[in-house]
């Protein structure tokens, strides 16, 4: 099916982020349509569409909404997860920059469906350019009566607050995000209870990724069958693929789920300087890496799981043969060490020890038996940590050993900068193309 611009369809128009441009293309018609339906009918359409969460886990969106108890007399909340901090993930921020109204409209529809009168858009703090655009979109929507009291005479009220984080990857984990939004340290909560039952202020809450919600208006407008005409049965619809790394044209490629990486790579102009692909990661550093032999696997939740990895955020990072796998893994572990919230021992201590040992390998003085040690520590972290950040931290090393064990062995004798001169890997390099 190939490229399917929906969210990105009008990004090449001047001021694509402005409400005027959005409304030129049927913007907010889906909201008007939704308000004429019952909330349950809206949930029904989203369920039928098969839309799955774009934040990484791929949970069915309509199902998540249906978990919110009805007539419980408590306030309900909708929280947008726009914390996008997973290494390699870079699709929600461009989306909020170029098309913030698709998110705002999605928020209004979702809030109506789950009977929430209050929504929060939690954006990571380091992106003023995106925050400005979302703030502006919310203000524009209020000014036109698309948010606020009695929206379009439907009797439905919705207040939306744009909220900023302050630099903590863990706040992307939904329960840590809720604690952070309550003005606390962003540390994960024990589940259950799940947010749908006891989330923000201990009330029923839906947390959805920004891209997930931005996809909703087009589904309401065109119907579940239209959405399902793209993608596969288990992975329906379109998706923003953000392709980065050593490719000729890194960028956002909006395509049907099921498009293989080889096709996305072709759209991206192939690898830079005609060098060979060495390894790639389909959706953020928290999912296991793959090699060129996997390049024809359809990019779906199910096919990538069968290959031993995950679609994750759907933002492939592509590395060419000049790249040191050891260095890449070591740097990702530094990240997890830095971002571990410290709540549980396996993750807090484990990431600390792994980085210490990996550093030796970077310098070419790792010991063979220490590979076993790192593997052990990963085993102590995975499945024994309080939240999925721990599991993520235990992912890059075993993933890399599966395909590149010999490189780690080489790093017991030779510094990685000798085996893989950094001058070749960087993209403004003037040093010999090989």
């Amino acid at each position, binding site marked *: 099916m*190939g*490229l*399917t*611009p929906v969210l*990105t369809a009008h*990004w*090449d128009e001047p*001021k694509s*982020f402005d409400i005027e441009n959005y409304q030129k293309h*049927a913007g907010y018609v*889906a909201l008007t349509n939704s308000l004429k339906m019952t909330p349950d009918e809206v949930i029904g359409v989203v369920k039928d569409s098969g839309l799955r969460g774009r934040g990484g886990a791929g949970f069915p969106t309509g199902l998540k909404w249906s978990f919110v108890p009805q007539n419980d007399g408590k*306030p309900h909340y909708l929280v947008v997860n726009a914390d996008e*901090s997973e*290494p*390699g*993930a*870079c699709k929600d*921020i*461009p989306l909020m920059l170029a098309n913030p109204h698709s998110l705002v409209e999605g928020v209004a529809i979702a809030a109506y469906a789950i009977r929430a009168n209050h929504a929060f858009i939690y954006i990571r*703090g*380091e992106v*003023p*350019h995106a*925050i*400005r655009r979302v703030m*502006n979109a919310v203000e524009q929507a209020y000014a036109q009566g698309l948010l606020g009291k009695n929206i379009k005479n439907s009797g439905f009220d919705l207040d939306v607050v*744009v*909220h*900023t*984080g302050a*630099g903590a990857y863990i706040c992307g984990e939904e329960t840590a995000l809720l604690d952070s939004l309550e*003005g*606390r*340290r*962003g540390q994960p909560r024990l589940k259950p209870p799940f947010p749908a039952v006891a989330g923000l*202020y201990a009330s029923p809450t839906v947390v959805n990724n920004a891209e997930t919600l931005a996809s909703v208006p087009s589904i309401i*407008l065109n119907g579940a069958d*239209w959405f399902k*005409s793209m993608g596969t049965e288990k992975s329906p619809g*379109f998706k923003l*693929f953000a*392709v*980065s*790394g050593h490719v000729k044209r*890194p*960028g*956002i*490629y909006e*395509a049907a789920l099921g498009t293989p990486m080889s096709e996305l790579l072709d*759209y*991206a102009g192939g690898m830079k300087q005609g060098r060979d692909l060495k390894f790639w990661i389909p959706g953020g*550093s928290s999912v296991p890496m793959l090699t060129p032999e996997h390049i024809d696997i359809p990019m779906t939740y199910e096919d990538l799981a069968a290959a031993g990895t995950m679609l994750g955020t759907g933002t492939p990072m592509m*590395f060419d043969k000049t790249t040191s796998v050891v260095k*890449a893994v070591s*740097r*990702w572990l530094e990240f997890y060490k830095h*971002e571990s919230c410290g709540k549980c021992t396996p993750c807090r201590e484990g990431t600390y020890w792994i980085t210490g040992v990996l550093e030796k390998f970077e310098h070419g003085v790792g010991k063979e038996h220490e590979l076993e040690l790192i593997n052990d520590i990963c085993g102590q972290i995975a499945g024994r940590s309080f939240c999925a950040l721990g599991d993520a931290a235990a992912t890059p090393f075993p993933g890399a050993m599966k395909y590149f064990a010999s490189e780690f062995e080489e790093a017991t004798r030779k510094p990685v900068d000798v085996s893989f001169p*950094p001058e070749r*890997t*960087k993209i403004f390099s003037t040093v010999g193309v090989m």
Partner: protein
Amino acid sequence: MSVKEITAEHIEELEVLAAKYPVRRSALLPMLHYVQSVQGMVSPKGIQTCATVLDLTPAEVAAVATFYTMFKRFPMGKHHIGVCINTLCALLGGDDLWKELTETLGIGHDETTSDSMFTIERIECQAACTVAPVMTVNWEFMDSMDPAKLKELIEKLKTGAPVQSTRGTLITSISDSERLLAGFNDGKVNDSPDADDSMLAGLRVAKERNMTAPIGKGVR
């Protein structure tokens, strides 16, 4: 550098932030951004002020402030400069940029130049990997950097020459950015550029090759 006092007017603005939420404590992160915009840091006095406004203890506020890397307990310079050193940016050139920056300014991570112009920081993935290697000035993005552009950037910032962020607005100061992050819209939404090459990459190929999403009844 002396840290600016928090005045009654500032407390009024902090009250505005607290009033935005059903539960006032939710405003704490925005309030700390606000304090940082006024003081260039989160000082003990700033912590005390937030505690008073929210009816918390200073220890409760300090526990939150110290958790988040964006909140600094030392006075920042006029400009905060970040270099992404997460794997992808680092390998594509970020490590070089960091080296160049530290050598040019003679300071290290989380340090400030003696003239209080620059504070520099090694930062994690900025959700901009398609335009790697990435730097930020006052958190506004400088995409696809290289050492020559870095030198020019520092020179311009030193002399006060205008610098346009590739995704954001004209660079002003960390204080202005923090005010926006606190929740006070600066109204500069039209000052930042439309979608760049990386954001349009897929749409352009789709148009070249006549690819579209299926036509739906709603047409978007």
